[in-house]
């Protein structure tokens, strides 16, 4: 069982590398893996470039596709890890940090920046992501604060209900804003649908730091999460301070989602299916499910983004639509394939 799962982890790691190679190589200019390695060697270790590689290819790979693919990978991983945590601790297979209002909050923040058209000093181009992040996390904190006032035990239904109420309220504010400023609608909708175009190395850096720190932090709680799937009372009886654990996990997971969303828009679906697919293959233990669903979600996002920008090139599809378009059938395939085998 264990050995089998370790082998599977290696397979997932290889799949991640292949997905990244595909994402970086495929496009209007095709670049082969050997050349990608050559360019990487040149940039990282100042090795001589392969003779066949042109300067334009170097800039396409290094300045455009690398940051784009890496941010897609990191955002996918962050969303999936956060989705896994939310599903487990809220004991609800449909829960995600979107349920708690991260995306509606972030959208409102972005809308405010787009409509008001201002940039903060120092933040510059990062004003929009910064506002999205603050509004997204602010919404979740408001939800948690309100829920714990309503119900000292912080029951799951209370959290989900409060999250829904706040999300709807924030969405209504957003609708109001977009009706009053119709000329910005197009821009807002584009942002909400999500895209990785124009992502820079700085964004990759921020995403990488948050992702790594966030996922490592969440990994400290894998055992508690296992226990909480048996119900909160059972976990408490066995010695888990579930209220504290839940608060820490929700805030950490929302931080991950908030960071991903503020750079890419609200890409859905991945955080929903990555944990389910991973559980199907690896079993329910979180020490596997959490890191592997992050890897799986990352690879899936890279492929979705690659399709989004190539299928109708030069036009680009919103990546959020692609994740659902290929994700739904994939989800069905994984489920029905395993039928009868148990």
């Amino acid at each position, binding site marked *: 069982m264990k050995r089998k799962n370790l082998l599977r982890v290696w397979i997932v790691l290889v799949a991640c590398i292949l997905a990244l190679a595909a994402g970086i190589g495929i496009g209007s200019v095709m670049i082969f893996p050997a050349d990608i390695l050559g360019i990487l060697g040149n940039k990282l270790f100042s090795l001589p470039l392969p003779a066949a590689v042109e300067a334009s290819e170097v800039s396409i790979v290094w300045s455009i596709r690398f940051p784009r693919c890496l941010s897609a990978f990191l955002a996918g991983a962050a969303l999936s890890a956060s989705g896994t945590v939310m599903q487990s601790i809220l004991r609800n297979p449909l829960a995600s940090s979107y349920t708690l209002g991260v995306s509606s909050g972030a959208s409102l923040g972005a809308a405010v920046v787009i409509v008001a058209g201002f940039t903060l000093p120092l933040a510059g181009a990062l004003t929009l992501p910064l506002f999205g992040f603050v509004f997204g996390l602010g919404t979740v904190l408001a939800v948690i604060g309100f829920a714990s006032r309503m119900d000292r035990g912080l029951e799951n239904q209370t959290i989900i209900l409060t999250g829904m109420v706040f999300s709807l309220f924030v969405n209504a504010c957003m609708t109001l804003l977009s009706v009053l400023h119709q000329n910005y609608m197009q821009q807002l909708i584009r942002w909400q649908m999500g895209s990785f175009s124009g992502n820079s190395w700085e964004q990759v850096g921020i995403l990488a730091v948050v992702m790594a720190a966030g996922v490592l932090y969440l990994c400290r709680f894998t055992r508690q999460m*296992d226990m909480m799937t048996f119900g909160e009372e059972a976990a408490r009886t066995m010695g888990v301070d579930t209220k504290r654990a839940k608060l820490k996990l929700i805030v950490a997971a929302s931080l991950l989602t908030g960071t991903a969303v503020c750079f890419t828009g609200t890409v859905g679906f991945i955080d929903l299916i990555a944990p389910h697919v991973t559980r199907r293959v690896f079993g329910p233990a979180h020490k596997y499910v959490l890191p592997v669903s992050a890897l799986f979600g990352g690879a899936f996002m890279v492929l979705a983004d690659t399709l989004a920008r190539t299928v109708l090139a030069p036009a680009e599809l919103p990546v959020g639509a692609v994740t659902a378009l290929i994700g739904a059938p994939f989800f069905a395939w994984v489920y029905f394939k395993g039928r009868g085998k148990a």
Partner: protein
Amino acid sequence: MSNKALELDGVFAGYGENPVLKGISFSLEEGRRLAVLGPNGSGKTTLLRVLDGLLDWRGKLKILGKDASGMKREELAKSVAMMSQFSGASLPYTVEETVLMGRYVHMPRGIFAGPGEKDRRAARECIRAAGLSGWENRRVTELSGGQLQRVFLARTLAQEPSVILLDEPTSHLDLKYQTELMDYLKNWGQQPGHTVVGVLHDINLALRLADTFLFIKEGKILAFGGKEILTPHLLDETYGMDVAAYMREAADRMEEIINGKHLSKPL
């Protein structure tokens, strides 16, 4: 003089505004096996939830001589474990994984820390004690209610508590395993330093397990003590019916079955 496992003095607890327990006071020595009896809604489960720290309470409560207010979850879980009637299994963990969860308070913490050889050995031992040897790799979602109950017994034992709380532990079990479980817990309770507190509906099972009895009704204690407190009057008062007549009727039927006669009265 033996040590006190539980000391309660004027304990109130409840849900929302209405207290369910209205001033419960008793103390139980280590090594006792207590059956808590009373009608539905009398506060039996509430009492267990207070003892397991799942519910806020007012009054004085000491567990193993230590003040329970302000006791940390982990500290409490090292002394007290509850085998609940409601705990279900939602994800397909294996029996071994599930029992190992009971070792949580004894395991090292950290990202890469996991169960050690000591934990695995303890889990194996508890799996054997619960009669589940050979089932280690079965998925808990594929088990029957009774089998799952055994897994939860193993998990409770794996926690190595001094006090085991049982909330209707026999609700999913057939007759044979009900008696086996009671005998097992009786034996466990007779080991030095162990105490059992069980909420039970079946007086026969209570008598099989316990040496001390607590009768509660409407959140107050009706009687507390050894077998000598059991009188027809107390049972009638507790359940609001003629318990003796009911028991006699059941005994008569059993007598007829044992003697191989057809039942004279319909069941």
